[in-house]
């Protein structure tokens, strides 16, 4: 029965995809370990947060957040693959399991937490929405923006905040919605819009991308709260805890004065807080399903939160952002991590 055979082969080829029986649901940690790398969703290019260079090497605070998780799991901060995503794609990509964690300057909101099947594992940057305007239009304050054309990136909370803000102030606006931040800047630079709106941390970076940065300025208004942080899927609490606590360990490390430079010395520290942090006393890692020294590895290879901040967005970088509210709680900011204990 040659025909039947060929049909069967064809059918098997077409449907072979489905024949893999619904595998026993492996935990995210197991599947990450099996793959040998962490798949992390980032932006397709946003200076300071996640940006590839000519060679495809990624840098940024969001990228470092992923690297720290990889270092905690594998002891190797390089065991990460980055998936560049547009704002539109990001949640679907995370929900569908294409990526293991999303670290893409994503704002923590109730809807996203509750109905998108996502969990926000902390905050790695406290931001707020602002406006970048063309100096030529002679505006000093956001309340003068009635009737303005606004360039904005699709699928962001900024899109909603903008609408709320203008409605509350009884003003009109025209939104021009682009897929990527690059196109948004291109649209603003070509004069399509009077105003570009985004998180304030971005505005400085985007302004530096203009061919004439002096032609634009950032308005003083902040119209929203934008706590940005890494996101994981709901339903895997162990994985949620891992991402949450790697970030917390980094923040705690800054508070305790542990840096990538002194972490090896600190291993000998007799401060019990530091001992727990670095895994020299008590096995905190085991509770998360990680090696005991996961904290030490993450700090050694990526650094504490302060280092991560200074390296990517701090005053000495092109973005030049002061710590502000992102300073530790002990220094007047709101960065406050629960204790490792």
């Amino acid at each position: 029965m040659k025909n039947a055979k060929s049909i069967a082969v064809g059918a098997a080829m077409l449907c072979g995809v489905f024949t893999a029986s619904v595998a026993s649901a492996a935990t995210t940690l197991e599947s990450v370990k099996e793959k040998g790398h962490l798949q992390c969703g980032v932006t397709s290019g946003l200076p300071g947060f996640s940006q590839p260079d000519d060679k495809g090497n990624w840098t940024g605070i969001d990228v470092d957040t992923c690297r720290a998780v990889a270092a905690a799991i594998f002891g190797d901060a390089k065991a990460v693959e980055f998936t560049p995503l547009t704002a539109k794609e990001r949640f679907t990509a995370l929900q569908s399991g294409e990526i293991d964690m999303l670290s893409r300057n994503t704002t923590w909101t109730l809807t996203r937490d509750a109905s998108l099947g996502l969990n926000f594992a902390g905050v790695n940057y406290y931001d707020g929405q602002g406006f970048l305007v063309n100096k030529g239009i002679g505006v000093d304050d956001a309340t003068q923006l009635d009737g303005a054309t606004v360039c904005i990136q699709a699928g962001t909370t900024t899109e909603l905040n903008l609408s709320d803000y203008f409605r509350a102030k009884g003003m009109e606006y025209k939104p021009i919605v682009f897929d990527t931040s690059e196109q948004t800047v291109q649209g603003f630079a070509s004069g399509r819009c009077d105003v570009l709106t985004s998180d304030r941390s971005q505005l400085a970076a985007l302004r530096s991308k203009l061919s004439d940065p002096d032609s634009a300025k950032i308005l003083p208004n902040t119209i929203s709260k934008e706590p940005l942080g890494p996101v994981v899927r709901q339903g895997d609490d162990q994985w949620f805890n891992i991402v949450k606590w790697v970030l917390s360990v980094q923040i705690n490390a800054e508070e305790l004065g542990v840096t990538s430079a002194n972490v090896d010395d600190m291993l000998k520290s007799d401060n019990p807080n530091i001992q727990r942090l670095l895994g020299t006393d008590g096995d905190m890692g085991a509770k998360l399903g990680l090696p005991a020294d996961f904290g030490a590895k993450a700090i050694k290879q990526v650094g504490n939160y302060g280092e991560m901040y200074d390296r990517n967005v701090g005053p000495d970088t092109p973005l030049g952002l002061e710590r502000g509210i992102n300073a530790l709680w002990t220094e007047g900011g709101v960065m406050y991590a629960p204790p490792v204990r």
Partner: protein
Amino acid sequence: MKKQTFDSKPAGPKPWYDPRVRAIFFQVVAIALVFWGGWVLIDNTLSNMESRGISTGFGFLDESAGFGIIMSLVPYDATMSYGRTFWVGLTNTLLVSAMGVVTATILGFIIGVARLSSNWLVAKVSLAYIEVIRNIPLLLQIFFWYFAVLSSLPSPRQSVDVGGAFFLNNRGLYVPEPVTQDGFGLVWGGILAAIAAVIGIRIWAKRRQLATGAIFPTFKVGVGILFLVPIMSYFLAGQPLEWDLPALKGFNFGGGISIIPELAALWIALSLYTASFIAEIVRSGILSVSKGQTEASKALGLPNGLTLRLVVIPQAMRVIIPPLTSQYLNLVKNSSLATAIGYPDLVAVFMGTTLNQTGQAVEVVAITMAVYLTISLLISLFMNIYNRAVAIKER
């Protein structure tokens, strides 16, 4: 030697060699495979969605959307529902598709005929147009018109000003909007009366021609009536029309009708691109009409224009219509590239922002695909009906 027996029943083909049995077998297998595949797919999706805590169902369509859209043919503001954003996107898709179909058809016919022109220069320029435009990706052309051409336009305050009524700047093209006043009903009446009169004259002229052979200049008289009667009724009613002129208000122009650059770029690119394909279809359609037809009509003394209009084009249309349909379908599908430049079409608004704000990818994508499927089936249906109407009636 054994004698052959013929009385026993001839051994029919074994059941698995019987084509009918086989056919049934294969079809049952196919159906089973499809159902099984579908079931596995749906089961996977549902269990994946459940285990990941993704909400399902179409309830989100009634929730408030909360984001603005730059351009809408149906009333919309941010307080309206996600369901409304669907209609906004759909009407915008239909708008740019309809505009594109009209201009691409006109342009395509002109270029297709020009391609066969006896004027060497005109024919070669048309050929160059076709060969250049259709070999460059549409997305690239959209980018070119949007990012490269737009940035060379002036800002609103330095607009290109035509007679204080038309303005062109990097925010779009602004034209005056006619606002009808009281008494405009008379003008509408005049327009309707003119159309009715032209149809009447046409019927009368045809009958007269059949009866007496005398030709009545229907076209010229018709055009005259169509222009004169509405204009007369306009003045009779006391000019009940005012123009809302665009004017610089704040940052942008207000008033009048505006065509936003996103729409313009998409429209231009879709029209130019599709026209290059339509031109080739028109050319091969005209070439398919045998030379004898042209010669016969010339022998009858018909001038060139009438030969084209009465003899060649009606026959060429039979060849042109089917591929033309698929070009229209392509144009509608290609309008989804709007998302790359921020024109709020169905894919950009509904499958973009709405999908992202609600996170219900499966529902939103299913609705979007259903819409395109419906549009495509409708276009095919209308074209089939038309095709049947113009098909050769064999006697």
